[in-house]
């Protein structure tokens, strides 16, 4: 059988990386997968291991996988199945994450593997997040190649996103460490469902995170996401305290969490726990996956959410995923003039000088360079 070209190239520069000719593309990766895993060791049952990565603490009998589908007990060793094997690799605008106060207007190399620690009924990316790894096509992209690709595509940062970067923890961690060495930044787009020790380790090499705070109700976390609220709150708080730039996303789902009280609870918790400079993104819901019975979030609801967030004392509240006038504009908290105006994912107007408002010189919280 004919072998396809090994370097597809782009502009003659060999931009894109292909699996090595004649070799096993996963050979090195597989070795790494077995080296770096979060495991509590052998459990009471013979041959079983406990995965201590997320609050589920899955106990895996030999040959079985965890709830995330991508961590398995192979030969008595906890193994990260998707290490170095992303199913999605794209260059996105950083505004798409969404991150509005982190290197605005820059491209970001965004990668994901299969798997997630939660199982949200409304997941927008369920085709990859709720898939078994053997059901998806992937690329062989070990951490060092992720960094090389980011450089070649002119991206100053790398996002671990689309599915759940905390589920493919070892890959995220190793790629992030290499990116740091190369002077690149790292971004997590995550549901924040992780235990404290691994999060502390990952935070050392993470620059920014957009963390979902889906509900302020443990009941809804259980019913909609098959998770719990407390670990998420803890992860958000811990990330902030460890120096990660944190923006929070709250998906507003009609009838579930679109009441004034529910919207206020999110904003209030953020202001009290993380501070008023933490950006909050109220995001529009679209019927997806196993939640097609509810309508999309009306623009009016998001407008109302934004007003509630601002009234609660947050300085930067956004409304996205649905067109809302000025919903994605960063306003100066002092003079209220637009500092960064965005249309979809593009910055179309910028009045920012060295992290300060270009109109009144008020400092704007964020990572600007």
């Amino acid at each position, binding site marked *: *059988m004919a*072998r*396809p*070209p*090994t370097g*597809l*190239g*782009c502009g003659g520069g060999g*931009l*894109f*990386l*292909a*699996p*090595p*000719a*004649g*070799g*096993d*593309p*996963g050979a090195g990766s597989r070795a790494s997968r077995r080296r770096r895993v979060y495991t509590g060791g052998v459990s009471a049952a013979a041959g079983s291991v406990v995965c201590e990565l997320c609050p589920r603490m899955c106990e895996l009998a030999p*040959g*079985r*996988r965890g709830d995330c589908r991508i961590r*398995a007990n*192979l030969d008595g060793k906890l193994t990260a*199945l*998707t290490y170095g*094997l992303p*199913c*999605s*690799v*794209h*260059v*996105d*605008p950083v505004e*798409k*994450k969404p991150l509005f106060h982190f290197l605005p207007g820059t491209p970001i190399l*965004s990668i*994901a593997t299969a798997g997630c620690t939660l199982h949200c009924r409304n997941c*927008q*990316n369920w085709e*990859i997040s709720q898939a*078994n*790894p*053997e*059901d*998806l*096509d*992937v*690329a*062989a*992209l070990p951490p060092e190649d992720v960094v090389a*690709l980011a450089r070649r*595509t002119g991206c100053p940062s790398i*996002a671990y*996103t*689309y599915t759940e970067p905390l589920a493919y923890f070892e890959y995220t961690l190793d790629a992030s460490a290499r990116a740091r060495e190369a002077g690149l930044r790292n971004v997590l*787009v995550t549901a924040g469902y992780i235990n404290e020790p691994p999060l502390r380790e990952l935070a050392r090499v993470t620059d920014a995170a*957009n963390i979902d705070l889906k509900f302020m109700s443990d009941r809804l976390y259980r019913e909609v996401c098959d998770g719990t609220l407390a670990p998420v709150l803890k992860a958000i708080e811990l990330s902030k305290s460890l120096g990660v730039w944190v923006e929070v996303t709250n998906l507003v789902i009609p009838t579930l969490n679109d009441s004034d009280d529910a919207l206020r609870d999110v904003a209030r918790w953020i202001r009290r726990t993380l501070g008023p400079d933490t950006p909050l993104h109220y995001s529009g819901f679209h019927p997806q996956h196993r939640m097609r019975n509810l309508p999309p979030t009306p623009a009016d609801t998001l407008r109302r959410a934004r007003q509630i967030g601002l009234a609660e004392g947050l300085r930067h509240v956004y409304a996205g995923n649905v067109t809302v006038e000025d919903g994605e504009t960063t306003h100066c908290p002092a003079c209220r003039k637009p500092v960064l105006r965005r249309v979809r*994912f593009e910055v179309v107007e910028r009045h920012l000088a060295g992290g300060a408002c270009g109109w009144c010189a008020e400092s704007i919280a964020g990572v600007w360079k």
Partner: protein
Amino acid sequence: MKRRVFLRSLAAAAAGTAAGGAAGRPVRWSRARAGRGVARRILPLDPAAVLRPARWAG
């Protein structure tokens, strides 16, 4: 079933091996092997797709 497939994929052609199997040899899906499954196919990155924003959220 979707998973009940032969893992004789393009990966064999692309990389000289089928996922989890010996070089170039077709590998039959089995419940045991599914636990070791890492991918349906391992393909080269598509340059055009990489430079396009993802259709996925986030």
